[in-house]
């Protein structure tokens, strides 16, 4: 059953890219999430509206459509706009890796926005008032009081997001990014053993999920080490 006919190496190649895309997209998603949460919670109306539009649109459109839109659509749009502006033919070529990281980051940034918004709201108001009464500036309050706690409140939600994100990287095979799914596809075609290769790929994803869940559990225990339990 698990005879790869000399193509076993494809899984290692793919796994590296999958994990790398996942981690990079995760960083982008956290940045977008913090920005989005700020947009939702700050007092400026335009920022509120922008952040709400962002989460509404991204959560209402399938990932696959967004990926294809960004990879093919936005490139062509930029090309057209730049050509019109500069008057000369401009060719833009985003490589699949960058496109994948940006698209997944933007998509999961919308979900991270909700996670961070909830986490910021979970910080007791009294602590912020106390910080202000000590004369801390808003920035200092953010750095010393809010950010250290936000991570603790956001960790369960971010862990779930990571599990969904790493599975979504499989969609990147559609834009020819050579990640785990794409490499399994190559192996399956060359050996004519599609079931063997896709099944193995699925077990690797399952392995990533199990490792992530274990790490998440450790991280949560570590983040909550100062919290008294009933």
């Amino acid at each position, binding site marked *: 059953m698990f005879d790869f006919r000399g193509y076993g190496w494809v899984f290692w190649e793919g796994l590296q890219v999958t994990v790398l895309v996942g981690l990079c997209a995760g960083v982008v998603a956290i940045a977008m999430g913090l920005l989005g949460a700020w947009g939702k919670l700050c007092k400026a109306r335009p920022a509120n509206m922008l952040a709400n539009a962002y989460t*509404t*649109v991204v*959560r*209402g*459109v*399938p*990932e*696959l*459509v*967004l990926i*294809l*839109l960004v990879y*093919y*659509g*936005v490139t*062509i*749009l930029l090309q057209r706009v730049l050509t019109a502006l500069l008057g000369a033919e401009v060719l833009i070529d985003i490589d699949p890796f960058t496109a994948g990281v940006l698209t997944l980051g933007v998509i*999961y940034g919308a*979900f991270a926005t*909700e996670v961070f918004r909830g986490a910021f709201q979970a910080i007791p108001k009294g602590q912020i008032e106390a910080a202000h009464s000590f004369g801390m500036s808003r920035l200092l309050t953010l750095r010393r009081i809010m950010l250290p706690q936000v991570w603790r409140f956001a960790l369960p939600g971010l862990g*779930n*997001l990571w*599990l*969904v994100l790493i*599975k*979504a*990287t*499989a*969609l990147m*095979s*559609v834009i020819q990014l050579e990640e785990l*799914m794409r490499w399994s*596809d190559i192996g*399956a075609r060359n050996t*004519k*053993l*599609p*079931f*063997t290769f*896709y*099944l193995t*790929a*699925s077990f690797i*994803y*399952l392995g990533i*999920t*199990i490792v992530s869940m274990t790490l998440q559990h450790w991280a949560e225990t570590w983040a909550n080490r100062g919290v008294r339990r009933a």
Partner: protein
Amino acid sequence: MDSLDLFFESLGLEPIWNNLPRFLSGALLTIEITALSVSLGLALALPLALARLSVNPLLRLPVYGYIFYFRGTPLLVQLFLIYYGSGQFRDVLEDVGLWRFLREPYFCAILALTLNTAAYTAEILRGAIQAVPFGEVEAARACGMSRPMLFRRIILPKAARLALPAYSNEVIFLFQATSLVSIITLMDLTGVARVIISRSFRTFEVWIFVGLIYLALTYLIAWVFHKVEYRMMGHLRASPGQAAAAEPAVAVRN
């Protein structure tokens, strides 16, 4: 109609305008696949949730493994495993007469989506059944209800209400996930868009248009579930017209 044709052509939107019937048939296929997989998945999920809660490990552990596998792996892999993977066993499948089904992308799509959503839904139902307050179960037992009646009258209606918010998210996720069936050649909304783009090269406009249709349908589903939830929670509302309407939310599935 001529002036309309000219209007859309001047905007560069004539590939969309001329292909509206195709987009409609694509949207209908998307809705059909969603409806079929959601209903089959729900029918499968209830027995699975009960098996998952069973004290018998022979029943509980296989179901636990099934749920863990389908929740822990990408839907795309599951789809490929069924559609392309079955080709590896073509001879055997032809002998038992299953090849007829498994060579059809439509059948494979429904099968993969059903198995996938059944796993997620079973987990939602399990959580809801476990969340039924024990006092209510105890009271029903004290009234002399048999186990099936207790289940039918007390546990299921309560669990259904508790599961509804999470279940509406699951339905929305499945609806969006149906876009993957275009990868195995089905002409759903995404599939139609890809074909029209390959002919017209209006990449950006077509994807925006299709995205808007998905967006509208997603929030339609959210709105319907919100209404259902409002009806089912009638006994918890203070007085008519006073209940504050929470915004219909779409969360991430896990």
